[in-house]
């Protein structure tokens, strides 16, 4: 089963992304917890692309491709913007006590993604940044 979505780089489109992923996964039989985790991981990556890689330029767009074969979910998010965006894929381990002390707002998104997904990879294809996420979905 596969599905595709294209969105402009506006954070207003994050809801549409979540609904797209949610509907795709709820057609299978994954638990609400697992569905929410995957929705969150995709949301975090897409938000990063929209805000940090593209500066919320609505003239830029992202392509999302979902594929579910047996219980393995593959997500590919392709950024058509000019900037190559490659956050560190070393599993981040933010010191949240320090974040609280500093009053820090950001920096937890990729930690969530790396803890939720089995595999996270950013690479370059045709001068675009592509993020590939995969997870074997438990029931």
């Amino acid at each position, binding site marked *: 089963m596969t599905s595709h979505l294209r969105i402009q780089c506006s*954070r*207003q*489109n*994050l*809801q*549409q992304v*979540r609904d797209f992923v949610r509907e795709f996964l709820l057609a299978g039989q994954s638990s*609400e*917890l697992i569905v*929410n*985790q995957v*929705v*969150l991981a995709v*949301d*975090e990556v897409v*938000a990063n692309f*929209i*805000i940090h890689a593209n500066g919320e330029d609505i003239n830029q767009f992202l392509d999302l491709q979902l594929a579910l074969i047996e219980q393995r979910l593959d997500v590919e998010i392709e950024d058509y913007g000019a900037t190559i965006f490659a956050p560190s894929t070393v599993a981040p381990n*933010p010191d*949240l*006590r320090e*974040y*609280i*002390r*500093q*009053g*820090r*707002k*950001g*920096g*937890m*998104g990729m*930690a*969530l993604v790396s*803890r*939720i997904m089995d595999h996270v990879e950013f690479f370059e294809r045709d001068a675009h940044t592509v993020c590939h996420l995969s997870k074997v979905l438990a029931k």
Partner: protein
Amino acid sequence: MGPTMKVTTHPTADTLTLVLDGELDASSAVVLDAELNKPEIVNYKKVLIDCQRLSYISSAGLGVFISHLQRLQDSDVKLVFFNMQEKVFNVFEILGLDSLMNIVPTQEEAQAA
């Protein structure tokens, strides 16, 4: 599309309850941040966050709470979450925030915290 989060406030003499309704993401977190930024919030003894209708939270939403927590603690204001849905609590758990934030099951326990 407008913000996907609605925040309603219910003040008493010493407690402010914020009722969250919707999904807290990078687009809607600004709505919550605006409420927690209000200077009068430090005049309360407790700020209770009613999460019964909070159906989703991303790192942006978590970041809003993290960014205000120290300021509230420095002003002796307790921040307490209650009525949290399992899938939302799970997000706090993934990051280990469930041990750093005060999350209780019911409003009664929140008021007694």
